[in-house]
């Protein structure tokens, strides 16, 4: 088992205040970390920190290997078709599944030439997940992957996560009600808490 | 009246009012004669600034056309019944250009002459064979040539 | 046969422009229909092949 992501005393500040308590988080390959916590506690912020989109204010963060991030925003161009959206993604890193397979895997078979703007909410999320499949990336950071998906969609997510862990990948995901239904041994839970308001002394 | 009917009636009323007003305004302004060109009388009365380019319109005065000995230069006069303005032009004239024809010229007033860099011919809406025209001429109905 | 006209080039160009544009209006729908029917026949052939394979 190798380390995919290491952090030590990670902190991020907004409006001069830390968003969550300083955090230690190590992601081993083959394991998934489930982030929970109330709305606005900083799950998305943490994932964006881990992805490298935000720069930590304190503490350190190390990546070992490529990272994929699927956020609240779908990162889909409404003017491009599903296939074209994926084609772009495929060129960004080492390629994984081919596009037709990836689409079929997330239940979008037959919608390859529909423009992104004409997808339903759940279909958009599914296309977002397909982005993970067309590239090979060891670390997946998923922000509420179950949101807006029907039961079948949620099981697809579980399967994808399970397979990814089997292949030696690692996953950090934020979620509210639904937790991943994979081998519970492989899950770590982290519940974020609001950082206490600090007073300048 | 149901609200939808009322709404529709309102919209129709607004449409009618709007289109009506627009037409009225358009018709009133149309009566003021939109000038595509300036007539010789206006040129002489209004003292246009010398560097100002404009369009001069009117009929070519009979017997006023003089071709230069060499080159394309021509001189002629344009009149609107009242006044005449002499015009010089250096270029190819349209086929309909002839004495008595309505023309429009682009150019400047300089030294009491209109220096044109383009001459356009206006023509009328009458179409008839030459023989008919000759016959008409004989009976004195001149229907041709300009407005 | 061909009449002697003044302004012949202008007249003939006008008439040929008319001819060409009208002809294009005639031909274009034919081409499009051929393309449509061809693509439908291909799809139909695929469906038949799929059915034959199933049997």
């Amino acid at each position, binding site marked *: 088992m190798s380390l995919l992501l290491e952090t030590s005393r990670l902190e991020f500040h907004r409006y001069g205040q830390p968003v969550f308590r300083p955090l230690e988080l190590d992601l081993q390959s083959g394991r998934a970390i489930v982030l929970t916590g109330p709305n606005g506690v900083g799950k998305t912020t943490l994932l964006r920190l881990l992805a490298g989109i935000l720069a930590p204010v304190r503490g350190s963060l190390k990546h070992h290997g490529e990272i994929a991030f699927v956020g609240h925003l779908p990162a889909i161009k409404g003017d491009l078709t599903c296939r074209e959206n994926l084609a772009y993604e495929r060129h960004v890193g080492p390629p994984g599944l081919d596009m037709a397979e990836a689409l079929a895997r997330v239940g979008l078979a037959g919608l390859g030439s529909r*423009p992104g703007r*004409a997808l339903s909410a759940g279909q958009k999320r599914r296309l977002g997940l397909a982005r993970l499949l067309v590239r090979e990336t060891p670390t997946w950071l998923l922000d509420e992957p179950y949101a807006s998906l029907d039961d079948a969609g949620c099981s697809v997510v579980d399967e994808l996560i399970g397979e990814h862990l089997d292949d030696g990948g690692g996953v950090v995901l934020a979620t509210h009600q639904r937790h991943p239904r994979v081998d519970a041994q492989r899950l770590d839970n982290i519940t974020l808490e609001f950082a206490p308001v600090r007073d300048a002394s | 009246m149901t609200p939808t009917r009322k709404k529709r009636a309102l919209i129709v009323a607004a449409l009618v009012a709007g289109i009506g007003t627009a037409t009225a305004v*358009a018709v009133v302004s*149309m009566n003021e*004669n*939109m*000038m*595509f*060109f300036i007539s010789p009388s206006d040129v002489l009365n209004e003292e246009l600034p010398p560097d100002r380019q404009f369009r001069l*319109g009117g009929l070519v005065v009979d017997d006023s056309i003089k071709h230069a000995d060499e080159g394309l230069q021509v001189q002629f006069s344009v009149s609107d019944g009242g006044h005449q303005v002499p015009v010089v032009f250096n270029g*190819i*004239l*349209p*086929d*309909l*250009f002839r004495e008595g024809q309505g023309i*429009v010229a682009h150019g400047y007033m300089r030294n009491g002459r209109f220096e044109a860099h*383009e*001459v*356009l*011919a*206006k*023509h*009328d*809406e*009458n*179409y*008839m*064979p*030459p*023989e*008919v*025209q000759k016959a008409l001429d004989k009976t004195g109905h001149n229907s*041709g*040539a300009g407005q | 046969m061909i*009449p002697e*006209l*003044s*302004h012949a080039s*202008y*007249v003939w*160009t*006008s*008439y040929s*422009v*008319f001819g060409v*544009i*009208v002809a*294009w*209006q*005639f031909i274009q*729908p034919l081409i*499009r*229909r051929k393309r*449509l*029917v061809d*693509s*439908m*026949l291909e799809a*139909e052939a695929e469906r038949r092949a799929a059915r034959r394979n199933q049997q």
Partner: protein
Amino acid sequence: MIWKTLKIWFHKLGSAPSFYRFARVVSPWLWFGFAVTAAYGLYLALYVVPPDYQQGDSARILYIHVPAAWQAMFIYLVMTILAIIALIWRIRLTEILAMSCAPIGAALTLVCLVTGSLWGKPMWGTWWEWDARLTSMLVLLFIYIGIMGLYAAFDDRRKGARIASVLIIAGAVNIPIIHFSVEWWNTLHQGATIKLTGESSMDPSMLPPLIWMVISTKLFFGAALLDRARNELLDQDRSKKWVARQVLETSS
């Protein structure tokens, strides 16, 4: 009441397969009629009528220019009526017919513009002038192109048709402007020669080819319209059973 009967009538002819059959049968006859009338009209125009007393033989351009101009405007009117019906009752056939009008109208507008330009060069001394008649006709061409483009820009054809219909109706304002521009403005373009009320200022001997050409452009419009509408139907219904029955059987 009248509208209701009209609507029922439309529904009957409006069923896709029966319209398809109708178009397939009628369009060849219209093309044939067009070919005959146009051939005769053009023969008269080139060989029989005399040249004009002022413009000489260039006046023969009239027999293309004027019918094309009239037909381009007429098509717009037809298209507007179809668009209104399509918007109010969402009848698919009228949508399709309206959308099929645009390219034909654009083609004839183009003919009018090109022949007008070709005629203007020798007669007026210029190819183009920003006068009201010419500008409004150019605007018509752009509107036609806009309609075609707008329709093509949606992958849901019906949605595209309805949006394009809005533009069609808005653009209808241009038609009276084209027609009356020569009266309202002092244009370079001539005034009306053929008058519906009162005597026309064209010698009767020059009239017959014009009449034949006007008839032939009408037939042309009908034929081209049916052809295009038929294709559009095929395209929209490509996966439906009647298409398989109608098309695949007759063509294989």
